[in-house]
């Protein structure tokens, strides 16, 4: 397995009102390139914190220990084996796959270094991260940049879209920032992306404002913006939790489809283990900021070694007696 | 951390408190330190400051002791500021509670009246009122309150609108409390905090408005006012600009003190709503 990122002993502590809350405790995890990994946990398990830490979006008041190392890869060739999708490949036009940073050697990189012109909020400033293990490497680094390398989809699309900006612009600005396009080109790409996320009437959608769309439509827009610059990692943080069940299933299918098409690595955060099981190849179970169990979906679902995981699974048996997942569809 | 402790940890709040304390000290000690009529002639006219020990800030156009006037002026500013703000807050809270609680036609009428008061520039209204009735301390207080009660009224009404649907109000209704009693014994006390949060701004505005009225000659002629001092100094602006500048500095420091201390109090007493 070629690793996209390796996480070693990651510890994140928030400071609130003078007391410290440990959100993540010594988490070690590998993310394989091109895989679909689900992070499962209940509230307070630290799963969102993990997502934010990977994406470099933690607030400045968070203290970070451990390291996350990133590795570059040559772009996957088209036609490489993609998992058989349950949905037909409808989209005719394929967006360009963004350029990867394959020029530099696999240089491990510690968190805490950001680009100067990069998107650092005033809150972050310099993250007060401490890396264990001494000196940081000073080689040419691959710094995963939000938008270009990592696409992030948030839970509540009503809150994660700017209410006073057209959705066309909110997608186009990503393309423009990272791909160096003109506004006209960026808008064209935005329209193309809206088609890919199956939003009806992309032309008028470009000029629409978020409040004019439904929840599911807004989330499609958010996904379009997240993949606009062709990132190689897509993080979906509870991306379906705020949506109705039927819409949920559509969005999950959409994500699965896009990830396969563009050869992205998917990090799917959720509290819903059933949903994750449909989508992911590997599942990581978290509880109280610690990694409880990690394994392939089949292992976790069928032969979990942890009582907690089994408890989560049991809680999911609902009124329908159909099996939790279609095991025939699972691929090892 | 206790509230006084938190207040003391904010440098701005402490600075404000110091300024306010100085102002109050000035006002209270005015008669002590400068007995007699501050408007009496105390020395030669237009004596520059720092020339004579007995007249540390010099004298004005008519030979009055500037420092004495400054101290006595503090009384007027403080008295008018606090009284006008109190009046505005009380009237505003009452009107707002009535409107919010009664609803319907009463609400409509009261709100239109509030609109009318907000549409006329408050200073013009104060001007008209004082000129009609005649300048005296009490009239100035009423005139200022006339222009500023609308803010608290709206805030109070908004609070009451949200409070009146709550359980303890329904409970009071069930036991048969008279609506007015409910409005003023149950609802109003709970609607007060955001209204009181406005108090420092209102006091500050009242002090500034009083100064402006005095500057235009509409203050109480029997009292020393900082605005009046500035107006007097205007006639000799070229030769003794100091006479207009000093009272202005006193005003700035006073208002600044009110803002800082007020904001400090609001910050420390505010209920923390969730974590940022």
């Amino acid at each position, binding site marked *: 397995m070629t690793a996209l990122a390796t996480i070693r002993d990651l510890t994140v502590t928030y400071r609130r009102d003078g007391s410290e809350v440990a959100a993540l405790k010594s988490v070690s995890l590998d993310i394989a390139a091109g895989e679909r990994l689900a992070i499962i946990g209940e509230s307070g398990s630290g799963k969102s914190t993990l997502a934010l830490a990977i994406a470099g*979006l933690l607030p400045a008041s968070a203290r970070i220990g451990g390291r996350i190392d990133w590795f570059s890869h040559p772009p996957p060739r088209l036609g490489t084996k993609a998992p058989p999708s349950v949905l037909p490949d409808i989209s005719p036009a394929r967006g360009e796959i963004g350029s990867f940073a394959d020029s530099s050697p696999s240089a491990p990189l510690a968190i805490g270094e950001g680009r100067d*012109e*990069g*998107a*650092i*909020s*005033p809150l972050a400033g310099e993250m007060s991260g401490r890396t264990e293990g001494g000196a940081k490497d000073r080689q040419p680094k691959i710094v995963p*940049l*939000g*938008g*270009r390398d990592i696409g*992030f989809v*948030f839970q509540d699309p009503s*809150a994660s*879209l*700017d209410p*006073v*900006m057209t959705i066309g612009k909110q997608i186009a*600005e*990503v393309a423009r*920032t990272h791909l160096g396009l003109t506004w006209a080109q960026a808008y064209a790409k935005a329209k193309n992306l809206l088609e890919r996320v199956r939003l009806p009437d992309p032309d008028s959608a470009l000029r*629409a*404002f978020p*409040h004019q769309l*439904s929840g599911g439509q807004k989330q499609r827009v*958010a996904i379009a*913006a997240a993949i606009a610059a062709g990132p190689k990692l897509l993080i979906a943080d509870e991306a379906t939790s705020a949506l109705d069940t039927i819409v949920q299933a559509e969005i999950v299918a959409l994500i699965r489809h896009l990830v396969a098409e563009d050869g992205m690595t998917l990090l799917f955060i959720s509290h819903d283990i059933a949903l994750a099981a449909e989508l992911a190849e590997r599942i990581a179970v978290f509880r109280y900021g610690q990694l409880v169990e990690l394994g392939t979906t089949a292992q976790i679902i069928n032969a979990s070694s942890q009582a907690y995981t089994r408890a989560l699974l049991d809680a999911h048996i609902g009124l329908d007696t159909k099996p939790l997942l279609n095991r025939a569809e699972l691929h090892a | 951390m206790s509230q006084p402790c938190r207040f003391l940890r904010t440098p*701005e709040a402490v600075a404000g408190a110091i300024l306010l304390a100085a102002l109050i000290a000035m006002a209270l000690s005015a008669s002590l330190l400068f007995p007699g009529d501050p408007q009496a002639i105390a020395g030669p006219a237009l004596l520059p400051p720092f020339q004579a020990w007995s007249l540390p800030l010099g004298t004005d156009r008519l030979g009055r002791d500037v420092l004495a006037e400054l101290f006595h002026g503090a009384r007027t500013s403080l008295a008018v500021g606090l009284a006008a703000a109190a009046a505005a807050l009380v009237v505003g809270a009452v009107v707002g509670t009535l409107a919010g609680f009664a609803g319907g036609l009463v609400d409509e009428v009261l709100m239109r009246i509030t*609109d*009318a008061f907000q*549409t*006329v*520039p*408050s*200073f*013009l209204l104060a*001007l*008209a009122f004082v*000129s*009609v009735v*005649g300048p005296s301390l009490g009239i100035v207080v009423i005139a200022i309150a006339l222009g500023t009660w609308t803010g608290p009224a709206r805030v109070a009404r908004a609070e009451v609108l949200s409070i009146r649907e709550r359980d303890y109000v329904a409970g009071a209704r069930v036991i048969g409390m008279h609506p007015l009693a409910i409005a003023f014994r149950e609802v109003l006390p709970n609607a007060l905090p955001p209204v009181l949060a406005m108090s420092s701004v209102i006091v*500050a505005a009242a002090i500034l408005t009083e*100064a*402006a009225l005095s*500057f*235009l000659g*509409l203050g109480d002629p029997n009292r020393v006012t900082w605005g009046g001092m*500035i107006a007097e100094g205007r006639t000799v*602006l070229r030769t003794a*600009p100091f006479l*207009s*500048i000093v*009272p202005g500095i006193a*005003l*700035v*420091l006073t*208002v600044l003190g009110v*803002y*800082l201390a007020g904001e400090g109090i609001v910050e420390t007493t505010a209920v923390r709503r969730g974590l*940022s």
Partner: protein
Amino acid sequence: MTRALTLLRRRLVGSVFVLLIVVVGTFLLLEAAPGDAVDAYIVSTGGDAGMIELLRHRWGLDQSELTRLANYLWALLHFDLGQSVTFSRPIRDVILERLPNTLLLMVSATALSFGLGSALGIYAGARPGSFRDRFLSIGSLALYAVPGFWLGLVLIVVFAVDLRWLPIGGIETLASDKTGLDRAADIAVHLALPVAALGFIYLALYLRMMRAGMAEVWREDFVLAARAKGLSRRRIVLAHVARNALLPLVTMLGLQSAQMLGGSVVIESVFSVPGLGRLAQEAVASRDTPLLLGIILTSAVLVIVINLLVDIAYAFLDPRVGASETGT
């Protein structure tokens, strides 16, 4: 477009009602004055009892309050504000003469305070808690504490008396025959200090509002999303944070107009600008109650019009206003 029109219609109806209250209220207030216009007139010009009665009758002051109120309202419908005692001219004419000067002063001061205030507020709000943020915060608070008329005097002392860069007062050089651009430049020079005095106070207000607004918007999810998208800091600050924080400021513009109109009374007085504010002071000094009533009415109308315009502008800036769900 229909959205704006329905808004307009509803507001106009409400405004007429409010204006009615203003008229009646102010009329009754001014009626409470001991003595009336005739008394004031007699004081300055002299006259005997017979003359007083004659004037009272001529000016309709011997009729009952209600009758006079009714007459006044009727006259208002014809845009007749009555006759000014001081100027012996129709009040409407006097007001219309002075109004442009005040408008010029107000618009310029608003442009200064809103423009510069928001810009500085954005500058401070771009980095909350930084040194420049705290500096501008304290600085603006101090500025907000300054009385406008005193600031005007200080500016006069510094710029007109000591440095002699700018004139002391008035709106243009008297008895000069300047026209066109020359005249405009002359007026601009004369208005520089009054605009500065009036504008700086409210500049502090907009600065603080923008700063506070931005601090709140920074906490919103869509700002985190913008960071996640890897947008440049500049774009996040301007296109997302400031753009959203701007909205409450626009609303404030409307509310401030009433205050600024009041502030212009003192500023025009300090700088001898022949505007509406100064006219009010003159009316008070000469107890010309009809004139004062007319000025108050005009101010109220102005405030209503400005608020209306501001609301329309706001509707353009915030797409959520009055919108109905068009999506499914």
